[in-house]
């Protein structure tokens, strides 16, 4: 039995058979394997039925042989639908272009909103956004995805602690949380200044309060450097101590540097492939073949296409293969030592405050084991060692 569904594709017609020998006509049709269906008698000498379009031509000899008359009443199926569409090309074209335009417009950026930023940061951010290519009228599937935009925007704008990017339909929302530096509070409460570490005093400068130490004194952690008590014995007054005490502190740091270093860098060569994914089937559009790099990094960018508010099961993918190169660097022992000491210094400076000065360094110990240079370095650092300690008075 032929399926009606396939007939819809190939087309079929309803015919009217008029004549005395309609049954004979039917029998001959069957014999010739012409597919007819839905046969109905409507009058004394009239039968109507459907015939597949492909078999219509084969009807002619049977019609002649059986002396019946055949009239075509209806035309159904895709071939006739196409013909009808062709005769109304303007209407159909309009419909198709409407859907296409609607589809394109629902994949465009329509608005970019920035929230929570001060005018200056907003200006900066909108510049960065423009640089990234996020403008009204750009296609969403050509832009980097939201996480990447967020990462880029956050890294480019220092004044903002965090920038949250969300794509809401066709609108990009940027939520900015700005860094608010704490305002310097004038010391209002009475306090001492004490040592934060074991140190030897290098210099002392008292603004307010009473200096308790002199240069070359040794202090332990928590020892009072500048006292908040002022005035003479018996007539003590409380004041917030202010001043600077520079102390010499010793740091010991250990570093190890491997003699042979392996690291990979991107060479700048890249190959990009574009593809469309329907449901789970990926169809490449541009950029075929595997990249001919021996080592590479894959950078994937996937964008869902949308229609109005719905996400279609169609994805636009851009895959970049970035060529990687592994390099091996070997140090001689002297080089390794130099690098180790500079590394240690950098690390130490990062840990120290802004005003710290490294006064001297001394390598205590150096060994080369397992292809690594290990160093132990002693540093003399001069830095401000004061820490405020509020005076709590017992009643």
């Amino acid at each position, binding site marked *: *039995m*032929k399926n009606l569904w396939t007939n819809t594709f190939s087309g079929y017609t309803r015919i009217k058979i008029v004549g005395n020998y*309609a*049954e004979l006509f*039917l*029998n001959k*049709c*069957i*014999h010739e*394997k012409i597919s*007819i*269906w*839905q*046969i*109905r*008698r409507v009058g004394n000498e009239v*039968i109507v*039925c459907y015939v597949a379009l492909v078999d219509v031509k084969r009807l002619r000899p049977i019609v002649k042989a059986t002396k019946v008359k055949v009239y075509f009443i209806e035309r159904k199926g895709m071939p006739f639908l196409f013909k009808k569409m062709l005769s109304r090309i303007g209407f159909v074209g309009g419909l198709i272009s409407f859907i296409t335009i609607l589809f394109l417009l629902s994949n465009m950026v329509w608005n970019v909103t920035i929230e929570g930023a001060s005018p200056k940061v907003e200006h900066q951010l909108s510049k960065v956004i423009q640089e990234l290519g996020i403008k009204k009228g750009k296609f969403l599937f050509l832009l980097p995805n939201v996480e990447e935009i967020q990462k880029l925007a956050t890294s480019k704008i220092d004044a903002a602690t965090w920038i949250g990017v969300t794509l809401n339909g066709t609108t990009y929302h940027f939520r900015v949380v700005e860094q608010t530096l704490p305002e310097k509070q004038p010391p209002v409460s009475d306090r001492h200044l004490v040592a934060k570490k074991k140190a030897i005093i290098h210099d002392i400068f008292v603004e307010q309060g009473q200096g308790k130490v002199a240069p070359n004194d040794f202090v332990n952690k928590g020892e009072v450097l500048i006292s908040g008590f002022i005035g003479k014995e018996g007539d003590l007054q409380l004041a917030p101590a202010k001043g600077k005490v520079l102390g010499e502190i010793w740091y010991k740091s250990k570093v190890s540097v491997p003699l042979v270093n392996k690291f990979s860098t991107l060479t700048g060569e890249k190959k990009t492939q574009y593809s469309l994914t329907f449901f789970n089937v990926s169809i490449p559009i541009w950029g075929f073949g595997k990249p001919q790099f021996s080592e590479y990094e894959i950078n994937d960018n996937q964008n869902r296409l949308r229609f109005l508010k719905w996400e279609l099961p169609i994805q636009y993918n851009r895959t970049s293969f970035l060529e990687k190169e592994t390099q091996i660097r070997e140090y001689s022992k002297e080089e390794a030592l130099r690098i180790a000491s500079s590394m240690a210094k950098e690390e130490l400076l990062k840990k120290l405050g802004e005003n710290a000065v490294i006064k001297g360094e001394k390598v205590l110990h150096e060994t080369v084991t397992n292809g690594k240079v290990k160093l132990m370095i002693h540093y003399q650092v001069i830095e401000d060692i004061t820490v405020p300690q509020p005076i709590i008075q017992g009643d």
Partner: protein
Amino acid sequence: MRKLNKMVRKWMTNKMGLPADVMMDLPRITMIGQFHIYIENHRGVLRFTNQELRLLLEQGQLLIKGNNFVIKTILPEELLLEGLIEQVIYINENTPKKKQ
């Protein structure tokens, strides 16, 4: 010779439990309520109207009576009829028609 052939076939159907419609070219008729009738192994349409369908069989004819008949599908040996079926009648003629 033809008679012998028939006898052998009949014997095989009986003894070997083979379906009769396959062995002996008999029509196989399936009815679904009053509304559908499915006939296999027919030999052509003799008459078709709204109230009646007369089919040629290997032996004799099959007459189906009812109302609002529509032939849904028709193939060389199969036929699906739709409508309100009232009677299914076998017409046995003494002299079987020799028609191909």
